[in-house]
């Protein structure tokens, strides 16, 4: 088994793998969801499922913020970008996400001024330098990114910048996990909780998963051993009939999160009554918008936004992939009509998306495993 040498501590991985297998009840199948796209990436890259007994499967969750942006919001952002004197700024990840009328890249090629930035603070700087333009930041991301956007709005407010606003698309992981728990499609035995989101929100917000739904959740780091250890901890809980929230990633994630980050989010943003997630539909209280007191920085109030709901393309099965019902390669257009160069769905766009991760690494690692087990 050569493939285990891919990462350090292969012996520890094998030992964990044996301990996990020993916890399996004969005849029982287990399904755990890894909520975060970063985990999906590690799982495919290192072929971690091959360390687990066949009766344990890992399914992906909705924790890739680029993947869950619905088509209509992309169209709205493009409509803003095409208005006179607007400079739209966006993270690079967002540029190829298809809307109903193309992507940011298409709109930029057609003449709109759309610029890639690393940080919302770069967008703020563009606004300072271009007082005669209206600079809009396409704010996307989960709880990890929302505090940065909020800090940027506070900064713009303290500088009394009049030509900066954000188009707020921040979504929250807790309501999405709840929507998945409430959906009849999937029977899960527990969750591998997201790492970076939890540095902001901490572990407490997950307690309802254990308390109300009787599922264990382990916040996990991103390395192969972290994920295997998290699966082990989940299996121990299941075997002992416990369901609790555990923090495997305590070296980075404080139990209470980052209070300052939570405070600035609360200062600048409030819950939307509902928000559409690509593939998952409308989820109530699952996203943030700018509070009225900062309306001067809210692109949705400054610009005319069409706000039209656009149905996903027929061929696209991202919803099933985001809910963990389908594996990427089970989607009919995977790797044929839908590739990272010509994405039909969003899961193929971001490197955190399950389809892109599997496209880039999955087949590779599977081939290697096959080869390794043959020799």
């Amino acid at each position: 088994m050569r493939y285990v040498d891919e990462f350090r501590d292969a012996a520890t991985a094998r030992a964990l793998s044996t301990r996990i297998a020993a916890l399996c009840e004969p005849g029982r199948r287990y399904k755990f969801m890894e909520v975060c796209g970063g985990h999906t990436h590690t799982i495919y890259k290192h072929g971690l499922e091959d360390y687990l007994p066949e009766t344990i499967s890992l399914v992906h969750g909705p924790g890739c913020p680029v993947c869950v942006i619905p088509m209509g919001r992309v169209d709205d952002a493009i409509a803003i970008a095409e208005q006179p004197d607007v400079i739209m700024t966006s993270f690079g990840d967002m540029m190829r996400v298809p809307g109903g009328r193309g992507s940011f890249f298409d709109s930029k090629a057609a003449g709109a001024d759309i610029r890639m930035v690393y940080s919302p603070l770069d967008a703020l700087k563009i606004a300072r330098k271009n007082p005669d333009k209206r600079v809009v930041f396409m704010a996307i991301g989960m709880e990890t990114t929302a505090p940065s956007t909020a800090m940027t709005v506070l900064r713009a407010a303290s500088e009394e910048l009049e030509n900066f606003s954000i188009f707020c698309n921040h979504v929250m992981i807790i309501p999405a996990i709840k929507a998945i728990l409430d959906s009849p499609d999937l029977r899960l035995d527990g969750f591998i909780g997201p790492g970076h989101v939890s540095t902001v929100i901490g572990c407490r917000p997950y307690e309802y998963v254990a308390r109300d739904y009787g599922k264990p959740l382990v916040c996990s780091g991103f390395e192969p051993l972290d994920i295997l250890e998290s699966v082990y901890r989940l299996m121990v809980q299941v075997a002992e009939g416990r369901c609790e929230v555990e923090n495997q990633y305590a070296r980075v994630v404080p139990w209470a999160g980052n209070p300052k980050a939570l405070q600035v989010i609360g200062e600048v943003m409030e819950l939307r009554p509902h928000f559409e997630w690509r593939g998952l539909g409308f989820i109530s209280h699952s996203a943030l918008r700018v509070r009225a007191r900062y309306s001067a920085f809210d692109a949705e109030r400054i610009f005319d936004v069409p706000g039209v709901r656009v149905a996903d393309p027929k061929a696209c099965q991202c919803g099933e992939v985001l809910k963990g019902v389908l594996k990427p390669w089970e989607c009919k257009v995977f790797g044929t009509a839908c590739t990272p160069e010509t994405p039909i769905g969003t899961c193929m766009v971001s490197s955190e998306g399950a389809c892109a991760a599997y496209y880039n690494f999955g087949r590779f690692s599977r081939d290697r495993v096959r080869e390794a087990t043959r020799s």
Partner: protein
Amino acid sequence: MCLGIPGEVVELMAGHEDLAMVSVEGVQRAVNIGLLRDEGVTDLRPGDWVLIHVGFALSKIDEAEAKASLDWLTGVGDAYTDELRALAASDIT
């Protein structure tokens, strides 16, 4: 944008209360440390490691964790290279 990149604090920038100069894989960039300040106070010191997310230090980590995340990121490939390029082009001062 989802990647958390580790960097080592080089100095707290005088005159910019929310900024620190941070070294990321040998490149020095200004990073906002406002989320690690409570009531205007930060315990960040040169030599400390932080996890940087879209221009903001989100958490303080130890050196071993920084090395481990760098390893992980290197394995991510293009997405990390793109992120580093974007970070190098970023100027938030």
